[in-house]
């Protein structure tokens, strides 16, 4: 497990242990990775984050088009693997969780323990620091710093 924000590690570790999730990715709504568990490479993480944020963004547009409230949870379920996507609000803005799970757990358990993860993250968030905007000028430096934190490179 790797995290950009150290206070995310403990709640995420508890979630992974309890839910038996195969892969877990926490990101901001713009696709910036906050923490990951189970991914082997930086490329996989960045692609999954971009796709997860993209799916969530397009579903919000769909909901807006239909005049529905925004979706909070989306699930793609296959025979051997499922994908759980959930957006939630934190003091640092909207975050998205992407969880890949197999047949050794269930969607109900993933949902249950993800709700607990969100509660624990909200309790653990340091409130003193205001959310930072990622500016174009330092985007590459931010990205490289995140990748070093996530993969130790």
């Amino acid at each position, binding site marked *: 497990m790797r995290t950009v924000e150290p206070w995310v590690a403990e709640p995420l570790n508890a979630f992974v242990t309890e839910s038996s999730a195969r892969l877990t990715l926490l990101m901001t709504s713009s696709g910036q990775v906050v923490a990951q568990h189970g991914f082997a490479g930086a490329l996989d993480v960045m692609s999954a984050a971009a796709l997860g944020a993209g799916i969530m963004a397009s579903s919000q547009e769909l909901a807006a088009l239909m005049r529905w409230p925004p979706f909070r949870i989306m699930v793609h379920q296959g025979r051997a693997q499922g994908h759980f996507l959930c957006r939630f609000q934190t003091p640092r803005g909207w975050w998205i969780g992407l969880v890949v799970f197999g047949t050794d757990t*269930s969607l*109900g*358990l993933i949902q*249950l323990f993800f709700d607990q993860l969100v509660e624990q993250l909200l309790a653990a968030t340091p409130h003193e620091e205001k959310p930072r905007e990622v500016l174009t000028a330092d985007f590459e430096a931010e990205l490289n710093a995140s990748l070093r934190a996530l993969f130790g490179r």
Partner: protein
Amino acid sequence: MSRTYLTLLDPLTRLVGARGAMIVSAEDGLVVAEFLMENVKGSALAALAASLANRVARVVETSGRGAPRFMQLQAKGGSVFVAPAPADLILVLFTGPETAAGAARLEMLQAVERMG
């Protein structure tokens, strides 16, 4: 929520000490129908009950006893009864300590038969 499933749960909720009854998708651990007292979080109970039922079923089947028909967990504050049902569903009943286990078992097995 399906009226048929709610009708099936009705006799269970009439048992003395019943706190709630649910029909849960066994594979997903999601609520299909529920009758629960207030302040009981159905989604959490459904997920945990389905997980428990699946694990117990695996243990019983591995020991060569076939698929389990009925499970009871007894605690100081009450019991949880679980019965596998057709169509990959499970029936779950939560009771207080005053509920007669025999009556609960009978009602649950009858409900499972009606689901078939």
